[in-house]
């Protein structure tokens, strides 16, 4: 017992680390990505070009990256938490200054042929930074409001930059993610209630300052039929496609709504709609089940971790993934405003896929290094 613990402190060999990677989880991700491949294949009219093949390629590359990150010692990640956070902020500022304008927003940074959406990466870096802040704090310290001010600022800076792009959906996700880490760290319930209450009060003021297209989205969400060929078109067509799928779907490659292009952006944001149309409720619910399993698996990793840093990182990354999934699905069903949020691992799009897998790499690193001692941590059991 003692020996094994010493061995852990000394460090693990590469083989040990690879063996410690949860291949079950990798398999799970592969399954989800496989669903994505199939849908993109169907979306292109049963053709691997132009989406499915590249999707597979990216997943393979992302998987390697993920495993590469998984074997990085969690303590290195801990040490680099703030510098990484600073890099993320710099990227966000860069994208605001020189970014590519697409669909009315500056979101992308062109890194020599590789496009990066810093706001995606930023969320993972934020989780790591917050975990770094909270990992040594006792519950008493967490209870001190002054102690919460620096991490709050750390959340508000990226959220504000993302909002300025402007990308309302992502900003809200960033805030929620930060809140989740605060919650996991043990911040008191009433503080959340107070913040939410403040947000409700501030909402009308924020609405005044929103871009027209953002207001339009909110208005359209409240009454999609009001503008059936404009902003509400996406949602109406998406709902029609979902409904047309029925219990068992129209069959692979047979979704008339998506195949006939009534459905916009079917290969990215609305891929779940296409999936639900072609595979029906049964297929869509099964995919949602897979997603849920992945989330719960992430939480299990968090629970099994022996150090607070790892626990918070794992919880944050899992919540990030869960937010993506639920926001995307809720969006295509017309439950929340359309916000350019892809379905992770399924939607077409390099930046999102890579970022999600980077996140899972960090999660896997937590899993591999769940038993390491982290100096300064309260001694674990």
């Amino acid at each position, binding site marked *: 017992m003692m020996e094994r613990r010493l061995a852990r402190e000394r460090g693990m060999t590469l083989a040990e680390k690879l063996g410690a990677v949860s291949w079950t989880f990798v398999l799970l991700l592969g399954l989800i990505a496989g669903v994505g491949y199939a849908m993109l294949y169907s979306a292109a009219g049963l053709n691997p070009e132009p989406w499915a093949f590249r999707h597979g390629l990216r997943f393979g590359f992302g998987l390697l990256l993920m495993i590469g990150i998984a074997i990085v010692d969690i303590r290195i990640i801990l040490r680099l938490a703030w510098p990484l956070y600073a890099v993320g902020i710099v990227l966000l500022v860069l994208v605001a200054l020189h970014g590519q304008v697409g669909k009315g927003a500056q979101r992308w940074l062109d890194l020599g042929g590789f496009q990066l959406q810093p706001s995606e990466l930023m969320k993972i870096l934020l989780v790591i930074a917050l975990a770094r802040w909270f990992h040594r704090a006792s*519950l008493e310290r967490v209870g001190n409001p002054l102690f919460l001010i620096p991490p709050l600022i750390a959340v508000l800076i990226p959220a504000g930059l993302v909002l300025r792009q402007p990308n309302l959906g992502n900003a809200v996700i960033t805030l929620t993610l930060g809140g989740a880490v605060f919650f996991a760290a*043990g911040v008191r319930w009433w503080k959340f209630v107070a913040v939410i209450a403040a947000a409700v009060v501030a909402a009308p003021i924020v609405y005044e300052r929103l871009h027209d297209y953002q207001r339009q989205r909110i208005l359209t969400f409240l009454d999609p039929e009001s503008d059936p060929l404009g902003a509400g078109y996406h949602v109406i067509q998406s709902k029609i496609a979902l*409904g047309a799928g029925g219990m068992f779907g129209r069959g692979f490659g047979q979704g008339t709504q998506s195949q006939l292009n009534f459905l916009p952006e079917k290969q990215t944001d609305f891929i779940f709609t296409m999936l639900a149309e072609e595979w*029906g409720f049964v297929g869509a619910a099964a995919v*949602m089940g897979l997603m849920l399993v992945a989330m719960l698996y992430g*939480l299990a990793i968090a629970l099994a971790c022996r150090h607070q840093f790892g*626990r918070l990182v794992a919880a944050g990354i899992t*919540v990030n993934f869960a937010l993506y999934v639920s926001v995307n699905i809720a969006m295509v069903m017309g439950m929340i405003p359309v916000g350019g949020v892809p379905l992770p691992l399924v939607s077409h799009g390099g930046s999102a896929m890579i970022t999600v897998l980077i996140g899972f790499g960090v999660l896997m690193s937590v899993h591999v290094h769940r038993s390491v001692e982290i100096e300064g941590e309260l001694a674990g059991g």
Partner: protein
Amino acid sequence: MRRERSRRAVFTRRILLVGAAKTAVMAALAARLYHLQVVEGERYRTLADENRISVRLIPPPRGRLLDRFGEPIAANRLNWRAMLVAERTDDVGATLATFARIVPLSEADRARIERDLRRRRRFVPVVVRDHLAWEEMARLEVNAPDLPGILTDVGQSRIYPGGEAFAHVVGYVAPPAEADLDGDPMLELPGIRVGRAGLERAHDRTLRGRAGSVRLEVNAVGRVIRELAREEGTPGQDITTSLDAGLQQFAAKRIAAESAAAIVLDARNGEVMAMVSSPSFDPSLFDSGVSAAQWREWTTNRRAPLINKAIAGLYAPGSTFKMVVALAALEARAVTPGERIFCAGLTELGDAKFHCWRRGGHGWLDLREAIKQSCDCYFYEVAKRTGIDRIAAMSNRFGLGVEPGIELPGARAGLVPTRAWKRATHGVAWQQGETLVHGIGQGFIQATPLQLAVMTARMVNGGRAIEPHLTRAVGGQIVRGAKPDDWPLIGVPEAHLRLMRDAMGGVVNERAGTAWASRLPPEVGAAMGGKTGTTQVRRITLAERERGLRRQQDLPYEWRHHALFVGFAPVENPVYVCAVIIEHGGGGSAAAAPVARDIMAETLLRDPARRDTTPAPSLRIAAAEQRER
């Protein structure tokens, strides 16, 4: 240790909460999904089907109009068109600018396109240019990627091989106006034309046919994925008219220099063999839209080229009316055929004086001579004896003052006055002097050339109340009215009618007749009967009469008399009747009778019953096409 344990306990509790929350969210999403897909699935599935199936109409080819020998007088020609669908391009202006670099667009084209774009919904194609040449089509196809929203297709356009000669009878087609939209969805199609005048309008529904439809699977952009079902429409039916294209052209050419109208009827059944009005217009101009300048020219021209004078021109019948007066008098026993009446060149009634056209008078005349020489005093006396109401009743039996049964839109009923009519419209009593004036076909009375032809036909065909018509067959089915027995008798004794035929034969074929100079040439092999008519456009003043009547040629054009002639042939066994009016022609015998002679001669020469071979086609479609290019 204890602190770490409590912290971990809090974390575990909260992570479990997070996990529960995630599960709950996913369950809620799944429930919503179930609601959308399964509970409301049926509704959305219907919407989805509507989404992907688009029904498009296929316009059928418009039926042709044929002459009595089957020669087309209105036909279709393939028309390559370029159309623009506004919703398929981001910038209509840019697309049109690119288009104009490839195929030139005139200002008029641009104005029309802009108007159409405003009027039609964004997904309805609007014609940019039609009648494209093959090379232009090829250039457009090659440049298709630079022309978003532009589609090319082949439609049909209307051609009129007979051109101006047929313009009034055949009419023309034009793009539908708001008023034409009668609920037929076909009328919303680009390039569709509706009959606007003449036979094109009268038979529009028959010629138009019924649109077929095709159910297409389309994507949201409207691109056709595949055809699901096709329902063939009914092509428009061909209509065989009673016109003789060759005769029509001959008649049109004969009166081309005048403001005039001429009609040839088959007296036995009322078929219109030729109906021309001059000046005419080019009916094909309406297909693509008439320029403002052209339209102004047509509508301000005092000779009214757009009016079909044969059915819509109203004229006093003048002396051509005298037979009707005579028949009314005979029926009323106001006069006998042999009774002689003296013409002194002047009839006095109270203080008023009524002049005969011959200053010295005709002396003693019986009925036949009075018609032959067209004596006015004789008919003043006969009309006075008969009374206007009897004359009016007889007129109506001969189709005067009654709307003719012809299928052409715009045929007018004219006017035959009665005592009751005068009281009702003018509020004063009828004057006997007016009866005298009406005895020679002047005064209130008005008739169209078509009515005069019908009058003559009923007089020479044994008293059958034929109605004029132009339709012989629809889609190959002969319509009723081709046989004389289809028409009722008007109830005038054959002896009276024979007398009229005889007298009218005398008008042309006897030296003292007013149309002696216009008898048919011997090579025709038949004689014509007829009656001249000259009607005053304005009253001749006493001063003018004192100075002596000036020759018509010396008067300003608008003051000259209208010249009329009604005729029939052959005299012994009448088959054809004709009516001719030359506006401001001067005199019936001098201006109208020679025209009638030439047209009647041509009619008889072309009569298949009198010849061994059918006539050669007189219209050449190829030639007409060449002219259009």
